[in-house]
C-alpha cells in the first residue's frame, strides 16, 4: 500500500450533489461497473445493491483512507438553471407537461468552475491508477457536460494524508474513532454513500480532529 495523491485535471466545471466527492466512492463505482458490465445500467430500483465492491485502499477500522475532494481553485458555488424536456417526438393531441411521462423539469446544477480536483489516499498504486483512468467525468450532471476529465495524475507521496492532514479531517470520520473533534454531523462515511447503514455521527471534513 502506498501513500498517493490523485489529481484530476478538468476541462469543464464540476457539478456537485453534495459539498464533497469521495475517492473511495468513485473507485467503488468504477469497480461495480466493471463487475456488472452492461447489467450496471439496468439495476433493480426496488432492491438496491448494497454489497458494493471494496476499493483497494487501506482501512482505518472500517473507514477507507481516502480523502474527500479538494477543489482547486475554489471561487465558490455557482448555479446553472436549465430546462430538461423530453427529447422524443410528442404525440398529437393534448398532453400534460406538468406531470407524468411528458413532465418538464426546470433543474438547477450547482457547480464550481474548478480546474483540478485533488484527492489523497493510501492504497494499491497500480490498481488505483487503472481504476481512475476509467473515470471520464467527475461529479453530477456529467450527461450535460459537467466535470469532464482532461488528465488524471496519480503519484506517490511520502505521507499518509487520506484521513488527517495538518490536524484536519480529510474525510468524514466517525466520532467514535476520534479522541477530539471540532465539528460533527450525520454523514455517510463509507460506500455506498446513499445507504442509511453508512451514516454515522462523523467529524466534518476539513475541521480539526485527533485520532484515537
Amino acid at each position: 500500500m502506498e501513500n498517493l495523491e490523485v489529481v484530476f485535471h478538468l476541462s469543464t466545471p464540476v457539478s456537485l450533489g453534495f459539498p464533497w466527492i469521495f475517492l473511495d466512492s468513485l473507485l467503488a463505482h468504477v469497480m461495480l461497473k466493471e463487475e456488472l458490465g452492461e447489467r450496471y445500467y439496468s439495476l433493480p430500483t426496488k432492491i438496491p445493491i448494497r454489497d458494493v465492491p471494496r476499493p483497494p485502499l487501506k482501512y482505518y477500522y472500517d473507514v477507507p483512507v481516502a480523502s474527500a475532494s479538494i477543489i482547486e481553485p475554489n471561487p465558490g458555488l455557482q448555479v446553472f438553471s436549465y430546462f430538461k424536456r423530453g427529447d422524443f417526438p410528442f404525440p398529437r393531441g393534448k398532453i400534460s407537461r406538468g406531470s407524468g411521462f411528458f413532465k418538464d423539469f426546470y433543474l438547477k446544477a450547482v457547480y464550481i468552475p474548478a480546474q483540478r480536483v485533488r484527492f489523497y489516499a493510501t492504497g494499491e498504486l497500480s490498481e488505483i491508477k487503472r481504476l481512475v483512468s476509467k473515470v471520464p467525468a467527475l461529479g453530477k450532471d456529467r450527461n450535460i457536460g459537467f466535470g469532464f476529465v482532461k488528465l488524471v495524475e496519480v503519484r506517490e507521496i511520502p505521507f499518509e494524508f487520506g484521513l488527517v492532514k495538518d490536524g484536519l479531517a480529510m474525510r468524514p470520520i466517525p466520532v467514535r474513532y476520534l479522541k477530539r473533534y471540532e465539528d460533527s454531523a450525520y454523514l455517510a462515511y463509507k460506500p455506498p454513500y446513499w445507504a442509511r447503514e453508512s451514516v454515522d455521527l462523523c467529524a466534518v471534513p476539513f475541521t480539526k480532529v485527533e485520532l484515537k
Partner: protein
Amino acid sequence: MRGAVHQGGVEVDPEWLRRWREYFLAYYDEARVEDKAAEAAEFAKQYVDQGLVSVSGGKDSMAMLHIITTRVKRNIRVFHWDHGPYLVPREVEREILENIFGVASEADIYIRAYRRGFSERARVDWRPWYAEFFKALEELTRQLRVRYHVLGVRAEESSRREARGRVVERRSWVEVHPIYHFTWRDVWAYIFKHNVPVPRVYYAYAKLLGWDRVRLVTFFDREFEKYGSPQVDSVLSWRWRHTPG
C-alpha cells in the same frame, strides 16, 4: 470561504449581506415601498377582523405579518403550518416560530403540524400533505368562524398567481392578498428597512440562486425535484440531509 460565518446549517457571508442591505435600503426610498406598504395595510384593514393571517415564516408572509401588526392591528389571529422535522429542519422551524412570535407578540397564534412530516417518508411521498393541510385549515376556519384567509401571495410570483387576483372566493373561505402588488425587490427592501426577521438560510440560498429566485420551501422534498431543489439542498443544507436537525 473567507469571512463566512457559520449560522445554523448554512454559511452566510456578512460582507456580501451588508452590501445588499445597502442596496435594498436605497431601493426602499427610490421605489416608494413605504407607500405600497401603506396601501397594503389599508387593504388588509377590511379583512383582518374576520380573518386568519396565514404565515409560513418565509419572506412574503413575514413582510405581510409585519405590515399588519404594525399598521393595522396587533391582536390578530395567525395560522402557521409546521411541516415536520423531515421537511423543515427543527433549527429552521425554531427560528420561524421565534420570528412569528416576535413580530406578532400580541396575536393568537394557531399552529398545526403535519403528522407525516415526522417520518422520513414525507420527503418522498408528498401526496398526503395536501389532504392533511386543507383538512386542518378547514377545521380551524370552522372553529374560529373566520371568513377570510389573509395570505402573502404576490402577483409577480407566477402567471397562475397573477391570474388568481387579489381577492379569491373559495369553497369555505375567501382568500385575500394584501401584498399582491409587491415585487421581490419591494419585499426585500421592506424586510431590510424594518428589520423583519426571516430565517437565516434565506441568505445562503439567495447568494447562490439570486434574491429574486430564493423561496422558503420544504427541504429535500421530492415534490420540488422538478425544480432541482433537492440537489441545491444537498449542497447548501448538507447537515440536514441525514437528520431532521
